[in-house]
């Protein structure tokens, strides 16, 4: 598109990117720029003065006097050609200049005859357009007028730079404001979770207290539960939604039996990530299951082992986690007379907390636990 008289030392795409970077195109008139074109017109004693910016398919005027237009097509642009010249470019008679004699603004209204323009150049040397004066009669420019026009062009560029710096500062302020808001949201969320955790711990104190007979027994059960809870929290990822892999949640509890010569447990299931609201109760359930297996079940006898199977299925559009814990090779199983917190947790907490269907069976050859828990369908992510 640009005149091929000179081969410019820059790429048009870079020039356009620089122009866009000033965020000035199509902005409303501003008195600071209007004053500069008025001054240029008066000093040069010309009826028309423009701050013309060369966009990819048009020239757009940030300020103008005497023309009554905000933009023209590029084939009307004299600045497009003249901005490629250094300093002040003058065309004393446009009708006699082969570059401009067919220009619609020369052949038709407003019958332009005279042009003088000072290039608007970025600090990197890219031309953005020109500060120009125009007249309907053929004429020239004095040395003082040319000097003033060039000085005013520098002022236009300085104003554009200032404008851009302010826009960039405002964008940074906005970004840091958003970060602050996000931080405030996360702190609030953290408060929620801490308070909830404290209330849960209080609940565990009560529940453990009810199901233990001595302080030593209470202390041991309670600290094991807290430690298990902490281990599940260790697994949770550090993003807002916090997930943990099911396999690792289970391994947290069964790991002490991994060193055994005979395999004491088998884990069979696909990789699956549980969100915190499922991971934490499942972690607690696995802790209770393991504790019971160690005290009364398959892990209390040398030959016993536990098989944990899981899968994800979809019923009526709801994704569900199926988890089965089956014990083998332990002492003969019978229904316990006294219901401890472990069983309460499996039978009451899981259904309430996770909407899970739970099955607990004291099968003679080994304890069986089954759970069907819906996985979260969609997550409400707060907007930052």
């Amino acid at each position: 598109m640009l005149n091929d008289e000179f081969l410019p030392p820059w790429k048009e795409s870079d020039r356009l990117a620089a122009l866009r970077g000033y965020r000035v195109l199509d902005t409303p008139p501003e008195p600071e720029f209007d004053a500069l074109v008025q001054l240029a017109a008066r000093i040069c004693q010309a009826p028309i003065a423009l701050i013309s910016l060369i966009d990819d398919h048009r020239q757009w005027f940030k300020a103008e006097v005497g023309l009554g237009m905000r933009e023209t097509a590029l084939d009307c642009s004299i600045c497009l050609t003249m901005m490629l010249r250094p300093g002040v470019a003058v065309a004393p008679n446009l009708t006699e200049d082969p570059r401009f004699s067919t220009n619609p603004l020369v052949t038709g209204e407003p019958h332009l005859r005279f042009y003088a323009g000072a290039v608007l150049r970025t600090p990197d040397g890219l031309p953005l357009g020109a500060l120009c004066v125009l007249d309907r009669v053929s004429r020239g420019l004095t040395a003082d007028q040319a000097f003033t026009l060039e000085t005013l062009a520098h002022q236009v560029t300085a104003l554009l730079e200032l404008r851009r710096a302010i826009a960039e500062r405002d964008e940074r302020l906005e970004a840091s404001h958003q970060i602050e808001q996000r931080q405030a949201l996360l702190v609030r969320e953290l408060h929620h979770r801490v308070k909830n955790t404290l209330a849960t711990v209080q609940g565990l104190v009560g529940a453990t207290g009810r199901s233990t007979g001595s302080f030593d027994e209470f202390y041991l059960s309670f600290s094991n539960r807290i430690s298990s809870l902490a281990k599940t929290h260790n697994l949770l990822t550090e993003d807002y939604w916090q997930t943990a892999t099911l396999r690792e949640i289970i391994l947290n509890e069964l790991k002490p039996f991994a060193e055994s010569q005979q395999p004491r447990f088998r884990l069979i299931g696909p990789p699956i990530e549980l969100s915190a609201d499922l991971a934490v109760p499942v972690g607690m359930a696995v802790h209770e299951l393991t504790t019971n297996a160690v005290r009364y079940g398959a892990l209390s006898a040398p030959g016993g082992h536990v098989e944990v199977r899981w899968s994800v299925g979809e019923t009526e559009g709801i994704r569900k986690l199926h988890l089965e814990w089956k014990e083998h090779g332990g002492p003969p199983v019978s229904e316990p007379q006294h219901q401890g917190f472990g069983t309460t947790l499996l039978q009451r907490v899981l259904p309430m907390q996770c909407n899970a269907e739970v099955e607990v069976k004291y099968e003679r050859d080994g304890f069986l636990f089954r759970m069907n828990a819906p996985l979260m369908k969609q997550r409400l992510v707060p907007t930052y």
Partner: protein
Amino acid sequence: MTKLTGSKPLVLVLEDEAIIALNLQDDLQDAGHEVAGPFATCSAALEWLQTATPDLAILDATLKDGPCREIALELSRCDVPFLIYSGHQQDRQLLAEFDHITWIEKPVPSAVLVQECQQLLVGCD
């Protein structure tokens, strides 16, 4: 007004954290109350309220299906005293219209909660 129990006061409990809910239930039962629930959602509790009226209610400010506003309004309409048991200061802004209701910040010892319940029950005699 139909009460489901004879001498024991019936306490409706709304709490979506299961361990907290079950502990609350046990504490209230130990203190000689009958417990309705615990309900983890407002909708389940509303359904229950269609068929029965408690003597007292303990509400968590936010349940699984949202703030407890509707339940609080329903209880106010039936003149059932209630207290809000919440861990979150922000919930007070969320439920500003119930600012005159007893707010208890989680967690508190069960004795404190039971005592507050007694006071509400005495207050409405």
